[in-house]
């Protein structure tokens, strides 16, 4: 099995494995998500109408307001939640929300993480090491 490993800054949360959902776009739970139906609801978002439930979201930077800090926990309890979050740059709100919800988060990779991982890739996160492993990359054929 092909396994590529990448490192970011030391993150938050426990190890987790799942399928990536990737876009070169930004992220705010309040601005971008329909948290009842578990889909991206902002029309201008590159993941518009796609389900984020149980996916490892891979996006560019955190944006917008502070509500995400509370929302992650609520989303996790309702099980309408991503499995984890990888960003090029988190902001304090995303980090605080991840810590409050125990939602795995890693950011600050050496390269643009949205270019490294593709939607459908199976990846594993090791937040305490700031490490991700792409276990089996999505076919590019």
């Amino acid at each position, binding site marked *: 099995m092909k396994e590529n490993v990448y490192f970011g800054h030391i993150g938050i949360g426990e190890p987790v494995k799942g399928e990536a959902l990737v876009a070169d776009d930004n992220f705010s739970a*309040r601005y971008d998500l329909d948290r009842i139906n578990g889909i991206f609801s902002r029309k201008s978002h590159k993941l518009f109408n796609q389900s984020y439930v149980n996916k490892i979201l891979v996006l560019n930077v955190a944006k917008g307001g502070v509500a995400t800090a*509370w929302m992650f926990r609520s989303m996790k309890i309702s099980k309408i939640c991503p499995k984890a979050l990888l960003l090029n*740059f988190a902001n304090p*709100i995303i980090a605080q929300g991840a810590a409050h919800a125990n939602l795995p988060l890693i950011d600050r990779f050496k390269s643009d993480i949205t270019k490294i991982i593709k939607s459908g890739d199976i990846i594993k996160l090791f937040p305490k090491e700031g490490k991700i492993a792409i276990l089996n990359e999505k076919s590019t054929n």
Partner: protein
Amino acid sequence: MKLSHKELEIQSGQFGEVRKLALEHQIQVGKFFDAQSFVEISQVHIMADTEALGLAGIEYLENLAQYPDPQKQVWVPTITDPRGSDFKSFKKIKQNKRFVDMEKRAIDAFKQLNVMMTDTCINYQVFMPPVKGEHLAFGDTGSSIYANSVLGARTNFEGGPSALAASLTGRTPMYGLHLEQNRIPNKYFKLNVRPTNFSDWGALGGIIGKQMNSYWDVPIIYGIDFKPTSDELKHFGAAMASFGSTPMFHIAEVTPEDHLAQNKNPKMNNISLSDLNNFYKSYLPKDDHLDVVVFAAPQLSLNEMRILSELLDGNKIHPKVSLLVCTPSAVKVLCDKNGISKKIENSGGIILEGVCFYNMHAREIGEANGWKRLMSNSAKIINILGGYGYETILNSMEKCVISACQGKIVK
């Protein structure tokens, strides 16, 4: 992180489980951002509307509220951001009663923590304005960017759980905007257009915010040859923070830390009239149908309420359109006293106090009222509500009022 004697005592549980857990949360966040230590703070502003909290968040607060007072009550003055329901007016906008009940539960819990229910995002205009160099834990992007930029105080965006933790420990991890090196501007802008109203200021904030690459970008703006008002900078900062997750800006010759600009030959990003016009045009719909006009985000100051009341005085809102205005309860009292509320309400406008429209479960309110097309002079709310199923239009307060009275979008 290096912990002080007091922090070690908190960590050991000497002050109870609630404060211990709060500190552990803060250490986790501090380590994520490489904080070396904590810094004591003088006040906390906490965002915890019920839409953001959800039932899980309310239950979390209620659980804290069960602890004995010495363990659960805040250690520094702590005030609240807008709530999610106006108990006096929720029926006027068809807000579901279940959201009102959630709100009551959250307020009851906060009161037991000795949190002061100020319910405003413009706390810096109404209560305890911070001073230069003061370390804070502010929990609204608008209040944070204003405190950092205009007042020279120091805060990161502190989301609800972290703001609450800060209020319980009296400190916050020292990273980000608490450190001078992260307040130095690294993006340079030159305004070649003169903003003439609040929506122009918001639009310019949005234009700059969109160009920020992350929370760690700090812009400085040149070309403003007059002294902006507090309300103008409020709209500017709120929009910039909303579009860009930006916690601080400088304006040359205006804000108190503009001297931190060190680059003598920076790459200057010019902003022209056409940039401003294009920003407005990007929100123009294909037809002139209009459902609701909202003045909020940030809540209106006393002076904004006065200006709005004069625009509405003697006019009537078209029966097919609703007009909502959000202001702090403290400002509403003064509006009542000065005849401002009467002018707005006589025109058919609805004043919502202690709330902000977008955090009132705006999606459900829109569905209950059949509202789709929403017009505002706030670039921030125009940005946010795009994700809530609304088609949003930005224009000046004057054009918003004219549109509300004519029952259609007037450009």
